[in-house]
Every structure is written in structure tokens, then in C-alpha cells.
């Protein structure tokens, strides 16, 4: 039904086609031939961040984007979220073309801290709703509920500066949840956190997914995190980024902590490693050449 194939994939492996059938739900997001380039054609300094990415994302699935630095995974996320316009191609969400930010449908959790330091935690959550257009009377209740969901109800009146990194990310998540969108985009949300916090938050995210049925796309550098959380992992090549392969993780949500130490996860992680290793190497060797270009 849906062809989830990279347009310029270098092999048309029949086995790959089998893996790519989605069995969860219909596609809510369609990415079609999306490219992103900086600089004009023929300009020697032209950088092609992303090349012809085509991908369908099913309703209620958790898709992870992984790849070496500079492979365009954040760019792809920004394009899906409407924060960047692609050079070519288009994205549709629920059949509607993405032309700019879609706050009613898509909520974002950023890697860096985007909580406003001059407002309390709960005011931050409420402000997000104000931007989206939620009626004033509803905001308080929804904000409290979101904070409860992430376990920070007691910190509603604290200021972001008083919170740890993990707590700040949870507030960002609460703010995104408060928007009650169907899609959640997360750009390396746990990158700045220590590993233990990441594990705990990862498990929480899985629970959240199971409960709410949201569609989540998140970008990560961590192989284990990708396998542990995602239903599918899309591996991108080194720049110019193309979708190299999509790996399925057949494991129900919420993911149990035993899954983390299982052989299945280990095997998948190894498969990811093999796919990525060459790409990472390519990135390393490419860098000096690009600096002189």
C-alpha cells in the first residue's frame, strides 16, 4: 500500500521492500521527494543537506531518525514541522500540505532549552497554549494535567532556572503535550542529559505513546535509544542525506525495561551499527574536503 522507499536508494533489495510495510495504521504524514539545499546550483559552496527523502509515517507510530552528523535528520524534522521550507518536494499531514508551522497538528520538543526563563513552569506551559489559540479558561486545567503526566505537578510555580536539565526537558514535553496535537516532533530531546536520566525519560515516553496513541518522530544519535523507543528506525546516509534503510522493531508499547537487555534489541542495535558505521566514517573523511570547497 505505501511504498517507503528512498528515491535514490542504491539498491532495490526485495527483502527491504518487505520490511517496509506498515501494519499499524494509515499514513498520517507523507514526505514526498523532499530535498534541502543551501546555495545555488553551480555554486561551489552549495551544500545539499537532504536529498529526495520519501517516507510515510503511520498514525500512532514512533519513528526514529538516526544518522551521522550533518546528515540532515534535523533538517527533515524541521521540514515536517513546517519550520523550514524544502528546496524541492513536499510534506502533507492528514492530506494537507505543510506550508509553515502547524501548531494545531504538530508540537515540537527541542534539544536546547526553549523554556522562557522569565515565566514559571506552569506559565510556560500555558503560554504555549496561548500561542496555539486555546481558550483562556481551559489553559489552567490542561496545564496542570500535562505537568502531572510528566510528573512535575509539584514544580508548577518554579522557574526554569531552578530545575535540572532532565526536569526542563520534561517541562518542554509537558508544554508540547498541552497543545494536544496528534503529532509530536522531538529533536534530540535527551541529548543534553546524562544516560540514566535518558533511560528513565525514554521509558516514560514509551508509556506516553501507548497511552495517547500520538504519532512521534524523534531524532537521536543514540542507537540504543532509537531501537528501544521506536517502531521503525530510519537510517540516513552521510551528507547529502538520503534514507538508507528503515528498520522495523516489532515490540509492543509500552516497552518494558527487560527489552533493554534483550538479545532482540542487541541484534537490532548491531544491525544499526553496521549500517551507520560506514556513514560515520564517510562524514569524518568528508569534512576536510568540504572545508576547502
Amino acid at each position, binding site marked *: 500500500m505505501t511504498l517507503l522507499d528512498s528515491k535514490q536508494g542504491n539498491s532495490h533489495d526485495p527483502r527491504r521492500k518487505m520490511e517496509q510495510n506498515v501494519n499499524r495504521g494509515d499514513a498520517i504524514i507523507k514526505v*514526498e521527494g523532499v530535498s534541502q539545499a543551501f546555495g545555488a546550483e553551480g555554486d561551489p559552496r552549495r551544500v545539499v543537506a537532504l536529498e529526495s527523502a*520519501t517516507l510515510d509515517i503511520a498514525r500512532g507510530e514512533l519513528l526514529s531518525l538516526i544518522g551521522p552528523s550533518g546528515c540532515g535528520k534535523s533538517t527533515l524534522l524541521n521540514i515536517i514541522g513546517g519550520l523550514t521550507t*524544502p528546496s524541492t518536494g513536499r510534506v502533507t499531514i492528514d492530506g494537507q500540505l505543510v506550508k509553515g508551522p502547524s501548531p494545531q497538528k504538530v508540537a515540537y520538543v527541542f534539544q536546547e532549552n526553549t523554556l522562557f526563563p522569565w515565566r514559571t513552569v506552569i506559565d510556560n506551559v500555558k503560554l504555549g497554549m496561548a500561542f496555539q489559540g486555546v481558550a483562556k479558561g481551559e489553559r489552567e486545567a490542561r496545564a496542570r494535567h500535562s505537568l502531572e503526566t510528566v510528573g512535575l505537578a509539584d514544580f508548577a510555580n518554579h522557574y526554569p532556572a531552578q530545575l535540572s536539565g532532565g526536569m526542563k526537558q520534561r517541562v518542554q514535553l509537558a508544554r508540547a503535550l498541552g497543545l494536544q496535537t496528534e503529532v509530536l516532533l522531538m529533536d534530540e530531546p535527551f541529548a543534553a542529559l546524562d544516560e540514566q536520566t535518558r533511560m528513565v525519560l525514554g521509558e516514560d515516553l514509551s508509556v506516553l505513546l501507548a497511552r495517547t496513541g500520538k504519532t512521534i518522530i524523534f531524532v537521536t544519535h543514540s542507537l540504543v535509544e532509537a531501537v528501544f523507543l521506536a517502531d521503525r528506525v530510519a537510517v540516513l546516509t552521510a551528507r547529502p542525506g538520503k534514507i538508507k534503510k528503515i528498520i522495523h522493531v516489532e515490540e509492543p508499547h509500552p516497552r518494558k525495561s527487560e527489552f533493554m537487555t534483550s538479545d532482540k534489541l542487541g541484534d537490532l542495535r548491531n544491525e544499526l551499527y553496521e549500517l551507520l558505521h560506514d556513514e560515520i566514517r564517510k562524514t569524518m573523511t568528508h569534512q576536510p574536503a568540504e572545508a576547502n570547497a
Partner: protein
Amino acid sequence: MTAATITSIPQSRRGPIMSPGWARLLAIFFLLALWEIGARLYADPLFLCPPSQAVGALQHILADPKIRNAIEVTIFEVATAFAMAVSMGLAIGLAVGLHGFTKQSILPVILMLYATPQATILPLFVLIFGIGPAAKIAFGVSHGVFPVIVTTVAGVQNLRPQLLRAAHSMGANRWQVFTSIIFPHMIPSFFTGMRLGMTAVLLGVLLAELYVSTAGIGFYTRLFAESFSPPDLFALISVLAAIAVTLNELCRIAERHFRRWNEG
């Protein structure tokens, strides 16, 4: 599969119509034009004049030997005050900054003096030094010495004690330590201090000159103001402004040149 493609403007290439430098000149030109037209049409010639008349007055202002002399005296006062402020400021700054003890006890006193409004003691300076160049030089020094002290202290502050210890262990005497380690280290901040000092000295000398309205440029500014000759006043002030800007700019170029030591 790929239906209509949407091409968008590639991210980086949305250049402005003209470079900021030219735009700036255009803006200045536009303002001058506005001033010119506005002054010609609306201004009472006793109070305001168009820039063209001011430029016209430049010639006879600069031709007058007495005015030229007053300007030269002012430049001399600035130069003298600057030299004195920089040397005194350097000496005091080093004396205070090199020893942590003096720094913590005397520096706050110096900072407090720095923060006092010196305009209030200007009449005192004139009482003490008279209405000649001495008062203006003294007042200029009084303004200029503080930024130099503060930046010198800041300049020696970051010196790592290991460097000094290493030098001592190799048998360097005080003078050698000073010339080979301390001095090069604080050169960049010193030039910043010089730039700030120049600005302060200019302020002090000009303030004193304007106050003493019986001689020097203060006499002429008062004369032109009281006789309601805006072109002459504008012209004189433009000359002084040009001198001030040139001196400030020279110090800034020197500072930028020597700051590279720090980064390099």
C-alpha cells in the same frame, strides 16, 4: 508519487540592495538635506542655520588667527593631559593592581572617586589653577586617569601566578619579570585604557574650556551664542568635533591593532 514540486528561495541568497556602508552615507546625506531644507524654510536665522551656511562660516572661522590659536591651545591641552593621564594611570594602576592587598583596599576608593560627578569640582579646579591652560590640563588629567587605572588593574589581574613563579625560579629580577611577562601581558588592556582615557580627557578639557568663558574656545562659544551667530558657532563646534573624532579614532585603531596580540 511526486506531484507538484514546490521550489522555495534557497536559504542564503537574499542580498540587500546596497551595502550597509553606502546606505549609511545615504542616510546621513538625507538627514543633512532635511536639515538644510528645514532650516531654510522654517528656522529663525538667529537660532538655527542650514548646514551650508555653517560650512561657509568655516572659512572665516579658521582664517581668524585668534580662533586658530584657541583651537591649537585646546589641542595642546588635550595632548598634555592625555600624556599625563596615561603615565600616571599606568603607574598607579600597576602599583595597585600588582599586589592583591593594595588592590582590594585602595581600588574601591579609586572606584568611588571615579564615580563622582567631576563637573561639581570644576569651579574648584579653576580657583586653584586659574583660567589658563593649567586648569584645563588638570581637569583633563582628572578625568582621564581613572579609566587607565581601572583597565591597567584589570589587565594585570589575569596574570597567572605560575608564570611569575617560573620566572623567579629562573632567577629573573623584578625588572626582567616586568618587561618580559607583565608588560606584554597587559598591553592589550592598556590600549583599551588609552582609548577610554582619550575620550575622558577630551570630555574634561572641553568641559573646562567651555566653562572658562573669558579665554580660549569657551570665549568664542559664548561670543557666538550671545551674538546669535549660529553659523559661526556650528562651524567652530564642527572643527572641535572633527578633532575629537579623529583623536578617538586613532586610539581605537591603536587598540584594535594591539588587541590582536591577545587573540593571536
